[in-house]
Every structure is written in structure tokens, then in C-alpha cells.
């Protein structure tokens, strides 16, 4: 018994289709459509690894268009109805979000995920002297605070990016997950060994707000991926160096991997943006102006006692030897500056003659 087709549920096209079905007539248009990807047999380049995004891009639709005409969620390479609704994407040009390493970085990210619950040897966390535990927890508090900006920031921009560039969106999703895990692991560290959560500072919150409210994606990406995460990558490397047990070693080592991917994307996005911008000179001047202002925050960051003194205490092995520990801070200062300038240079924005970051720590 076939249910009656009521006027209140189905529109006229649906009623016509249902009546056809009831007569045994099927539409089958989907079998007659042109199929741009018909006959594509993407194969893993490396069977041990499996089928990668690079493999399917090499087989079909590898290079996204410079400026797709559609604003839809339909996957690149599919057939789209002419009257599909406009999603309101505002980032519809490749140079505004692309980087040439983003596909590889996405595969790398998905292959190298880890669990803050399972993969950290929490049983090797040792009781530390009070000053060392407080120092470690002050840093863990800071990192719990700052890391989620790199989840919030891409989340803010993702829906504005044309789905034609799905690889960028997918990579940013991995970044959001990475940073959620970083918040998790440092919160766990702070609360796992007696030290607890410590002080968060106005200046840090102000910098995070600057990133979150950056007027364009590339500006925010530069502030976050290149400047901010570049600095945090050095803090992670310093954290591994200063770790007082296997637990902290593993935390910082695994975080280093994630952070370095984000910095690599940001550096290569800046490069792509500058190389493909229709008015390269203006774009470069604008980014220099942004960097002029943003860099002024770095000396403030590296003269903040809530950041540099815990590092110095960990390096020195206790507050009694904090003077010796300041060597580590000077080291981080020098490394951070040099690596930041090298990344800018690689991206085509040479800052060496212009940077406001002093070459040496003023202490």
C-alpha cells in the first residue's frame, strides 16, 4: 500500500518524482551526468604509507584554480547544480590562503597525531623542589593560555574560506586539534604534580586579542604562525632542554613537532601571498608595517618576569642559581630572533635591516 502524497510535506517536483517512482519510473540522471573524474584510479605512491592527498591530487585536480567562480561546498572536481546557494565565502582567491606545502603538511599532521592521555609517560613525573615545580607550572599555565589561540584563530576564518581550497581548511582543522591537545597537556602537567595553575598576564591576553581580531587572515596568520608560534616553538625546544624528568621531555618533544608544522605553513603562506599578490609592492609594504608594530611586543615578552624567570630557574636548577639560568633566556632570545628573521627572509620579506627586535638580550 503506497502512502498518499500530501500537499503539506512535498513540493510539486517531489510529488512528480514520487508518482514516477510509484509507477516504476526512476530518474537516473546521476548515471547520465558527465563525470570529470570518471576513470581516475589514484594509487598510493608508497603502499606502506597508503593513499595520500598528494596521490589523489596527482591523479586528478591537483592544482586548485587561482580564483574559483563558485562559492559552494561541493568538492573540487564534482558537478554542481547551477542554482546552488552562495555560501558567502570571502576568501576566494588562492593567494589569500594557500601555501605550497599545505597538502604534505596535512598528511604529516594526520599521521603524527598523539594523545596527551596515552602517549605521555605520566608515571615518570617526579616530585620537584618547590621553586622548580612553580617554574614549570608557571610556564605550563602560560602555554595553556596561549595555545588555544591557534585553535580559535583558524576556527574564526575557516568558514570564510572557499571550499575549493579544502586542503588549507583541512590543515587548519588539524592545527585546531593540535592546539586543543597542547592546552590539554599543559593543563594536565600543571595539575599533575602539586604546582597548580599560576598567573596569566594582561600583556599576553592583549597579544592574543590582537591575533584573534586581526582584520585579515594573512595578517593574523603572520602574527600567529610566523611570529607567535615561531617564538613558542623555541620555548618548546627550551622546555625539552630544561626538562627535569621524562614526562616533561616527552611533552615538549611532541609539542615541538606540531608547532613546527604550523610555523612551516605560515612561512610558506606568507611567501605564496607575497609572490602572487596582484600588487606585490603594496602587499610587502603593508606586511612590513604590520611587522614593525608586532615586533615591538617581543622585547616586552622577553623582559616579562613571569616568563623569563621561570625559564632561568629551570635552567639554573633552582632559584639560588637563577643568574646562571639567564644564559638560557639569552639563548632563547637569540635563537628566536634569528629564526624569525630567517623565516621572513625565506618568505620574501627581508626584515634584517628593519627589525625592531634587539640582536641581544638587554640583560
Amino acid at each position, binding site marked *: 500500500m503506497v502512502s498518499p502524497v500530501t500537499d503539506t510535506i512535498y513540493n510539486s517536483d517531489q510529488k512528480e518524482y514520487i508518482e514516477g517512482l510509484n509507477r516504476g519510473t526512476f530518474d537516473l540522471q546521476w548515471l547520465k551526468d558527465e563525470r570529470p573524474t570518471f576513470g581516475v584510479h589514484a594509487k598510493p605512491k608508497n603502499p*606502506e604509507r597508503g593513499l595520500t592527498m598528494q596521490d589523489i591530487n596527482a591523479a586528478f585536480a591537483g592544482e586548485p584554480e587561482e580564483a574559483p567562480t563558485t562559492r559552494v561546498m561541493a568538492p573540487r572536481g564534482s558537478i554542481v547544480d547551477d542554482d546552488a546557494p552562495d555560501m558567502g565565502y570571502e576568501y576566494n582567491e588562492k593567494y589569500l590562503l594557500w601555501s605550497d606545502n599545505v597538502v604534505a603538511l596535512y*598528511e*604529516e599532521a594526520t599521521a603524527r597525531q598523539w594523545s596527551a592521555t596515552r602517549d605521555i609517560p605520566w608515571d615518570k613525573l617526579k616530585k620537584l623542589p618547590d621553586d622548580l615545580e612553580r617554574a614549570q607550572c608557571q610556564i605550563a599555565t602560560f602555554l595553556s593560555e596561549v595555545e588555544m589561540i591557534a585553535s580559535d584563530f583558524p576556527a574564526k576564518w575557516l568558514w570564510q574560506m572557499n571550499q575549493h581550497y579544502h586542503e588549507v581548511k583541512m590543515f587548519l582543522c588539524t592545527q585546531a586539534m593540535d592546539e586543543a591537545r597542547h592546552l590539554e597537556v599543559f593543563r594536565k602537567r600543571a595539575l599533575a604534580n602539586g604546582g597548580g595553575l599560576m598567573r596569566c598576564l594582561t600583556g599576553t591576553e592583549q597579544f592574543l586579542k590582537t591575533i584573534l581580531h586581526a582584520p585579515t587572515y594573512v595578517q593574523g596568520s603572520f602574527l600567529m604562525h610566523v611570529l607567535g608560534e615561531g617564538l613558542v*616553538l623555541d620555548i618548546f625546544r627550551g622546555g625539552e*632542554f630544561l626538562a627535569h624528568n*621524562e614526562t616533561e*621531555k616527552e611533552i615538549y618533544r611532541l609539542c615541538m613537532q606540531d*608547532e613546527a608544522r604550523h610555523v612551516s605553513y605560515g612561512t610558506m603562506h606568507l611567501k605564496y601571498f607575497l609572490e602572487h599578490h596582484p600588487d606585490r609592492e603594496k602587499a610587502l609594504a603593508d606586511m612590513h608595517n604590520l611587522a614593525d608594530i608586532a615586533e615591538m611586543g617581543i622585547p616586552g615578552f622577553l623582559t616579562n618576569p613571569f616568563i623569563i624567570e621561570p625559564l632561568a630557574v629551570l635552567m639554573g636548577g633552582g632559584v639560588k642559581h637563577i643568574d646562571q639560568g639567564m644564559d638560557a633566556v639569552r639563548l632563547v632570545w637569540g635563537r628566536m630572533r634569528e629564526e624569525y628573521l630567517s*623565516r621572513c627572509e625565506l618568505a620574501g620579506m627581508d626584515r634584517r635591516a628593519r627589525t625592531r627586535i634587539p640582536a641581544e638580550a638587554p640583560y
Partner: protein
Amino acid sequence: MKFPTVEWFEALEAQAEKNSDTFRRLGYCEALVGVKVVAENGQQRDRSFLLTFNGYSCNSVEEVDNIEHAADFVMEATFGTWKEMIENITANGGPDLSHTLNYLVMPGVPIKVTSRDQLKDDVFSRFISTFQEFFDGAQHVQTEFSG
């Protein structure tokens, strides 16, 4: 097994194969890693090895002359530094806190990392867990230091 030789690194490769579950969990790795052993105490010449990671661990090793042109980054240290690191890994069943790769590299001494550009330099950080696990395999290799 003599260090530094291609055979010694291949022994680490074999250890990684035995420990493949761990390497698979760490994830796929694409990197060209240079290891430079600087001669000292009357040794005749520096030795440089290119370790190709294109899988879950290292899958080929070769001794090369111009390592700086072949590798993403080069870890350069004296024979004595490498010897101390390997002996520490062997003695402790893994490195102690002051003999991990990052610990030895971070200050620029005793292991110096060089690369063609910062993106290549960052490869060290992107796959550090795999590299560390690879060198940790030294604890299972009978090493003879040929200095």
C-alpha cells in the same frame, strides 16, 4: 659494529624495523638527515652520512661527501660527542635528560645543526620523536668506536 660506518646506521635501521609498532605510532616521516662526524685525536677525515627517512623510519643510508647539499639539515659534532651520546643511550637504555638530540642541539653545541634555509632547519623539530627513537636503537647495537 663500528661507528661511524654505513653498517652501524643500517644496524639502527634494522632495530627500527624490529620496533616498527612504535615507529608507526609516531607517524610517517619524510626527511633527509645529515650526520657529520668531525675527526679528532688523529683521525684522518670527517665522515658524513645521509639518512633517508621516507617511511616510518630510516630506509637508506649512504656515506656522502657534500652532505650540506644533500640533506635537509646536518647534525655536526665531533667523534667524541657522538661517542658520548651513544654510550649514554647504551648505558641507560635510552638517553638521560642531558643526552637527547634536542638537548645536545639546542644551544648550538656540542651538536651544531646547519641547513640551507629555515624551513629545512625546522624539519628537525617536525620529526624529532622519530629521530630520537631511531638513535635510541643504539642501545641494542654492539658498538665499537673506531676512532
